[in-house]
């Protein structure tokens, strides 16, 4: 690990990438501003600024501080979690297609929530939180277990195992939804993946898991570079491969589970963010993982704003927008990956 870190002088690496990170950060701020300003009731940016600093009153200000500010903050947190989870998942599995969705995590959360709605008659997304979290965690663990072969994670098996798991969980989810009219009506909006109406009280409960996940992810990111060389080389460099995988798996489950619990199953952000960052800063995980802290929220906010703008005065769920944007991306990636 230390050898890899020394191979590239750290100073030059960071300074060269600073403009890029700044540009990404600027784009993120712009997106956040748009997210505060746009919607079924557009608010001028100057009013947004006044509302944020407490100078403005009236309906516009209430819309901004009461509805859009929480939603934007939630989107930032969820996007960061998804982006970093994707980067770590791709790192520990050495598979550029690994993501919270392809590991069956979203489907697991969906199944758990639908069962909870059916059995316990829940009605509000706040109440779904823990079911979603534990469903996601269980499915993620199962997918990782399926992909284990001789102590290693087989990339192809991980992709296929995740997909199989997802197919089964989806069909069970649909069966439960069909079992009750009310369940169907409650669950279908959550299952699409949405940020609408999310306030801070959805975010607080998962904040600890989210932060722990982020810390774990950042802590192992240098070791992921060694892992990229292959297990044998990493082992020879003194990196505890198995332990890194376990920690990384825990980080992915914590992050993706928190994100799903808050926003429902949002596809492709976790897949796309690392690829975007890799295009910009290369595949060094010490930059890749923090870079996803910017790229994830950027993509999620952009999809959310787009969903609010295209179908005004109604809105498209962010999960649907991201799936429409992400599917062609996955196809293009598949072309590259499987030569």
């Amino acid at each position, binding site marked *: 690990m230390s050898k890899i870190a020394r191979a590239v002088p750290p100073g030059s690496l960071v300074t060269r990438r600073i403009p890029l990170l700044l540009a990404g950060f600027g784009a993120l701020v712009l997106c956040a501003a748009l997210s505060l300003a746009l919607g079924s009731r557009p608010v001028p940016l100057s009013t947004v600024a006044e509302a944020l600093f407490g100078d403005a009153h009236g309906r516009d200000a209430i819309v901004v501080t009461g509805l859009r500010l929480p939603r934007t903050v939630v989107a930032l947190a969820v996007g960061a979690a998804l982006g970093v989870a994707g980067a770590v998942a791709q790192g520990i599995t050495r598979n550029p297609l690994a993501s919270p969705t392809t590991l069956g995590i979203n489907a697991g959360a969906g199944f758990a929530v639908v069962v909870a709605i059916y059995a316990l008659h829940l009605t509000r997304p706040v109440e779904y939180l823990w079911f979603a979290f534990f469903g996601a965690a269980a499915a993620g663990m199962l997918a990782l277990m399926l992909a284990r072969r001789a102590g290693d994670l087989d990339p192809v098996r991980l992709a296929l195992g995740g997909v199989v798991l997802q197919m*089964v969980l989806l069909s069970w989810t649909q069966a439960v939804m069909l*079992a009750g009219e009310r369940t169907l*009506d409650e669950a279908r909006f959550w299952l699409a993946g949405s940020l609408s109406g999310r306030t801070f009280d959805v975010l607080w409960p998962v904040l600890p898991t989210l932060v722990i996940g982020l810390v774990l992810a950042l802590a192992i990111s240098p070791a992921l570079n060694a892992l990229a060389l292959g297990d044998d080389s990493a082992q020879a460099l003194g990196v505890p491969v198995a332990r890194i995988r376990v920690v990384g798996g825990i980080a992915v489950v914590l992050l993706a589970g928190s994100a799903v619990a808050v926003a429902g199953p949002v596809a492709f952000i976790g897949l796309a963010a690392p690829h975007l960052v890799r295009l910009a800063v290369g595949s060094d995980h010490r930059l890749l993982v923090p870079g996803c802290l910017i790229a994830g929220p950027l993509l999620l906010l952009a999809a959310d704003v787009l969903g609010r703008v295209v179908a005004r005065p109604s809105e498209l769920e962010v999960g649907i927008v991201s799936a429409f944007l992400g599917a062609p991306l996955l196809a293009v990636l598949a072309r590259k990956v499987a030569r």
Partner: protein
Amino acid sequence: MTVFAVREVKAAPTSARVRQRRRLALLACVGLAALFALVTLALTTGQMPLPASVALRGLVGLGDPADVLVVQDFRAPRVIAAVVAGVGLGVAGSLLQRVFRNPLASPDVMGVTGGASFGAVVLLATGASQTLIPAAALGGGLLAALLLGVFGWRSGLTVTRLVLVGLAVQAGLAAAVNLMVVRFPAELAGSALQWTTGSLYGRTWTEVWAAGGAVALALVAAFSLQRRLAVLDLGDESAGGLGLNPSAARLQLLLTAIVLASLAAALTGPVAFVALAVPHLVRFVAGPPTPGTLALTGLAGAVLLLASDLVVQHLLPVSGLPVGVVTATLGAPWLLVLMIRQSRPVNRSAA
């Protein structure tokens, strides 16, 4: 047959073939018997239990008019839909797996059945007549195949790329279906979901005849193309030497398989894993592929789907479940076993 067999026993390789032919005949008998038993069971059981003799006579229109109505109008369409779709899915899966020489190629994995349900749901959304659903599903399946070709084709389709691009196509189409489910009023969303899980509930004779006739035509095409498969197995160069254009043959086979799978999905929705698991099962018990095994695959698909439907109707505590739940639950372990066998170290260098 026996005289024939005795004469050929002398040569060792042909004796193996004869043995396979005998085994096939035996398996076909077993399969037909199972199918007959399941059909009888499906016709006799339900809210109004009927004795087997009454049910079978009712099927041909004899006996008490009430019984005839129950058997002919309520139970028989569902049974026949299961048989037709099972045959279609089994044969489609078998063709695809042989064309790609990979056990994981199947209409589920390639997004074709997802495309079919997309087509059906779009039709439901526009409120058009339900009799058009087979056409819509066929269109959706072909759309998925087209997308797969556009994104996945790069001087041929390799299997990994096929599977991955299939996933992407499936995901995009699923998002479209999801959009409609969210936007629909609740009743429509329910029927759309029923479709996308794969269900045999409430099939009518018009649907069964339309899709059944089309499946029969596609089956004729499949069996007439079957010989090209054997030639393709020799490798592209030998096939070319024998006067067969490998790409054209492959395309024809692919189209046939996609049409079969889409039509089956039109009838039952995208029932998961039947197309994937059945050809394996048949190869496992019946040996190397011949036209006979292809027919047996269709038979086995019908038996499996009918049996799963009976499980859904009568053995599970919750009523109204779609049949896809059973096939997905049973089929997933199968796929996992296959995966594990595929990625054994011995085969890894090939992968």
